[in-house]
Each structure stands twice: as C-alpha cells, then as structure tokens.
C-alpha cells in the first residue's frame, strides 16, 4: 500500500529534525532513506509508523493507502516495524514472539490455536529458525534475533514494513547475508517497505529507490543508478562513497584547476571566474607515466594497497604544500584494476601523472552543470 507523507515538519526541544519533507512510496516499492545520523531519517520513519507525531500544520498529511494515519490508533494500523536493537520480547520464546501479533488480536478476529501454530511455523521456516522456536532471544545471535523481529513484523500481514537501521548492530558478514535475504524476501512478499540506513552500500544494494536526506531535508530521490551517477548536490556526491575534491574556477565553459581542466558544459559565460568544486570518484581517475595533451597533474605515489578486488593508490600532488589545510595538499585517491596496475608497474615514491576521465562540477553554491 502506498505511503504518502506531505509537508512534514518535526521540531524537538531545540532543533528541527524535519523541514517540510514530502515523500511518496508506491505500492510494493522498497525504498531506502539514506543519510548521516541526525539527518531526520529515523524521525520520518517513526512519524510514518505513528510512534511520533509531526508538528501540527494544516499542510501536513501522512497517508497510508490513502487514509490519514492520525485517524486510527497505531494498534489497528498493521504497521510492521523492525527496530535496530530488535526489541524482541525478552521473556518470550522465539515462537511466542512471532505469535504475539496474532494472539493480541480482538477475540473474534483471533486464529484458532492450530491455525496460529501453522502460520507461525511457516514464518519460522521462512526465517530458517524452526529449530530455535523454543529458545529465548538472549540465546540467539544478532542476525537470528533480527530475523525473528522480521518474522514477528510479517506475522500481522502488515500494510507497510518499516525498518529502522535493521542491520546496524550486526557485523559486516551477517549484514551482507541479511541484505540479500531481505531483497529475496521482498521479491517473494512485495510489501511496501521503507528501510532507514546510514550505510550507502546497503541502500544501493537493497533498495528500488533511494531517498537521500541531510539536515532534515530530502537532498535527492531516485534509483540507485540515478543518485550515484547523477547526484543532485555536493552532499549526495560526498555521501555516496569516496570522492576526490578539486577546487578550481570556471573558464569559458570549463572548470580549470591547476594544470587540469574538465568540461563544465552548461556553465554560461556569466559563470566565468566563479569558484568551481570538482568531484572525481577514485575509479574516474587515470594514472599515466607521460603527460599527454598536458592535461594532467603530477603526483607522487604515497601508498599502494593491492589486496582486494581493485588496487587503491594514494598520491600526493607535487605542488602540494606543507599546510594541511590547503586543499591542494589533500591526497588523491585512485582506484585501478589489477590489469591496469600490472601494466603501469607502479612503485611507491615515483612520480606519475593523474588524469581525470569523468567528473561532476559544482559551481558555488551547490549548482551542478
């Protein structure tokens, strides 16, 4: 069922957590709310769940399946919610945790015991924890607990599934597994889902659409491809993975920084002379032994890290100063394939030339070309 939140504001004692946020999630969609801590993503999720209320404002509406959520008590709205720290009922077994939502139904809607047991067992099979049904949450690992929490939320056949940093407290490997598992689960049971996370990799991997939040506002919303390749703001670029930043100026349609220039097509002549910020991802840089066309910056190889699927090279510009505040002194990070790395035969300490293949240019303030 679709979620439609319009013009949501939320003010806590002394700061504004949400500033006029509008969000629409289509039926069956899995979206990720991505942002740093304090960006308002969890607040927005809790408002959609009904656990927090937005500031009162005649423009504000929070609709689930077209119905205003303020009209119905939370307990009747069938919201599936998964907490970061599981919030399992510690004195109940795994089975009873999953069964809870079915047992507290009003008497006339309650399932008979055999039907209830069948349903809970089906869910336990889904999360592959049938053998653990009589254990208590404290006897399970973090990953298992979170699967129980998910099954418990699914038991009430929720109209929407809200996940608040569900994998945040788990270690990297378990997180990987659960992400994939959640993705498969969602294709089997396509319930409208909102996943809150601060982990960009998780968002890019799991979600149909990513909504990037910062300081109580939505920065950009789009498919993983869109936000990654066509970021709408500097914040989005820097938040979605590693990026090198070069400072330059606009000069006749190009952003010029040091000996390098990249196309800034779209910048009118009026933009000439304005400061430009050029963001280049590590894999969008190339290393050459000889400067061709002169369009390259000379740098020393500082460190090479070749353990992994790609080779990371850290370089320091020759024109860098000892002043660490100077943007020119920031290290340049380049990612190469192992083939490229072997062909170049790089060694630490030697001087090479760095060339920009692709870049995103923002003419201050926050204006993409």
């Amino acid at each position: 069922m679709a979620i439609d939140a319009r013009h949501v504001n939320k003010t806590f004692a002394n700061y504004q957590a949400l500033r006029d946020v509008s969000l629409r999630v289509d039926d069956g969609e899995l979206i990720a709310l991505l942002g740093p801590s304090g960006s308002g993503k969890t607040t927005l999720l809790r408002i959609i769940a009904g656990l927090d209320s937005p500031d009162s404002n005649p423009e504000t509406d929070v609709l689930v399946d077209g119905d205003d959520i303020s009209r119905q008590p939370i307990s009747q709205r069938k919201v599936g919610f998964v907490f970061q720290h599981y919030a399992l009922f510690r004195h109940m077994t795994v089975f009873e945790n999953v069964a809870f939502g079915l047992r507290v139904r009003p008497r006339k809607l309650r399932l008979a015991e055999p039907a209830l047991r069948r349903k809970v067992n089906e869910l336990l099979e889904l999360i592959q924890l049938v053998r653990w049904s009589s254990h208590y949450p404290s006897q399970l690992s973090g990953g298992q607990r979170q699967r129980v929490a998910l099954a418990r939320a699914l038991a009430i056949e929720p109209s929407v599934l809200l996940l608040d940093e569900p994998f945040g407290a788990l270690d990297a490997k378990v997180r990987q597994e659960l992400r994939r598992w959640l993705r498969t689960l969602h294709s089997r049971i396509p319930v409208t889902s909102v996943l809150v996370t601060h982990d960009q990799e998780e968002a890019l991997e799991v979600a149909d659409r990513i909504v990037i939040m910062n300081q109580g506002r939505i920065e950009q919303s789009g498919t993983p491809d869109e936000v990654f390749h066509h970021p709408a703001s500097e914040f989005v670029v820097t938040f979605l993975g590693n990026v090198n930043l070069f400072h330059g100026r606009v000069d006749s349609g190009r952003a010029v920084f040091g000996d390098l220039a990249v196309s800034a097509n779209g910048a009118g002549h009026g933009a000439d002379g304005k400061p430009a910020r050029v963001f280049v991802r590590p894999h969008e840089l190339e290393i050459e032994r000889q400067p061709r066309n002169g369009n390259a910056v000379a740098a020393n190889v500082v460190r090479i890290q070749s353990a992994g699927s790609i080779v990371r090279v850290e370089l320091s510009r020759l024109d860098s100063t000892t002043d660490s505040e100077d943007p020119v002194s920031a290290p340049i990070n380049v990612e190469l394939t192992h083939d490229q790395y072997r062909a170049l035969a790089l060694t630490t300490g030697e001087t090479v030339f760095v060339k920009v293949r692709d870049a995103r240019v923002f003419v201050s303030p926050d204006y993409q070309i």
Partner: protein
Amino acid sequence: MSTAPKYRHTEPPGLQVALILTAVGFVGVLILLPVIAVFTEALRKGLAFYISSITDPLALAALRLTLLTAAITITANLIFGLAASWLIAKFSFPGKNLLLSLIDIPFAVSPVISGLIFILVFGAQGWFGDSLASHNIQIVFATPGVVLATIFVTFPFIARELIPLMQEQGSEEEEAAVLLGANGWQTFWHVTLPNIRWALVYGVILANARAMGEFGAVSVVSGHIRGRTNTLPLHVEILYNEYNFSAAFAVASLLTLLALVTLVAKAALEWKIRVEERPAITAEEA
C-alpha cells in the same frame, strides 16, 4: 594446601584470614548476637510464659494491626509504585525530576518528623482537625493514622526498585507490542509486567519488612492505645518500659520471626531468579 596453584590470583593468606574474621565479627556482634539475645530473653521464664505472652489479647491485637497495616501499605504502594515508575521511565514531561525527588522525601526525612507531619495536618489542632472532627472522622491516634504514616515511610521502596530497571529497558518493547496490535492493557500485562516482575516482588518484600518494623513515625501518630492503635514494635516498647522484659522479648521474637519469614521469601526469590536466568539449552541440542 599441598597443591598450590601455579598462578596465584589471590590475596596473601594472612590478609584473607584477617578480612574474614573482621566480616564474621561484624555479623556476629551486630546481627547474630542480638537475634540470639532476643530468643534467650524471650524464653528465660520458660516456654509456658512465652506462649502466654504472645497469646495475650493485647499482643494479638498488636499483631493483627501490624499485619493489617502491612497489607494495606503494600497494596497502596504497589499501585503507586507501578504508576509512578511507568510514568517516570516511559514518558518525559516537565517536572519529572521534581517528581523523582518527591518520591525520595520519605527516605530523607526522619520517621519521627514524618509522624509529626500527620499530627500537624490531621490532628485535633491541625489544618483539617476541625472539619475532620465535625464529620466524626478520626485519623490521628487511630488505625488510619498508623496506616498513613506507614505508607508514607515505605513510599519509595517499590518505585525506587522499578524506575532504574524500567529506564534501562526503555520503551522499544512496548512500542513493538503496540505496533503489533496490542492495546494498552495487553502491552502492560504481556510485555511490561513480565519484564519487571522480580524487581516488583523484591520491592514488595523490602517495603513489607519496613512496614512491619516501622517504629518512629507510627509511634508519633498512634497514641499508644493498647489493643487499638498499638503495632507490634510499639507493644514491645510498652512492655519494656513496664519492666516486663521477658514478655517484651517474647513479642519482639514474634517480630523477628516475621522478619525471618520475609528474609526467607527474599532468599527463595533470589534462588528462583538464578534458576530462571540460567542459560538453559544450547543451540546444537535442539
């Protein structure tokens, strides 16, 4: 000790003995000795005198009043303690810290002063003295006064036991329950209460022990009317002041026995909690 462990992670033997003797000495002099003294003195004039002392109508009346007071006190403080802890731990509101401090007042105020407060408020010359008298209601120097003073003195026990636990547990389980469709009562009964039950029982035991043994506050408001407003501790005092030592100790032993029953209940509870929290079955055997 021929097989001395290779790695010693313990104090030198001399210090061990010294520490143990100090601890045992303290317990012996301050706790064991008085308890033994109570029973020896109580039985000094023989078992028959002992039995007649504790079955004396006045002693029985005091016992009845003590038990009645404890029962009412526990019920009242159970309700209050649960409500206050729920409010303080699960919600935030202006004046929360003030309420927390108010709950602690009975711990900070001397019991005699607590008793005096009730005299000043409900006594004949007190604030409500006239209106109470005109409605023929007697609070001070009657059972209600004794009960009120006891409730006041034992007021913080249950709340203080619950608040830290409930604060530590947070509200997420309750939020989860509500989102799963539980109403307020179901949430309280199936989620909140099971999580705090042992702390609750523990608070009740502590409050009960204090309620039965309270002397200062009750002494001020009771008026020492024999057979009517005397609790067990007050009855002991009267007998003692009348040089009726053996009878005083006999009744005191009754109070001691009640205390011992409470302690046994507490120990049994602690044992039960340990059993319940023992990690039961491991993963693989399932």
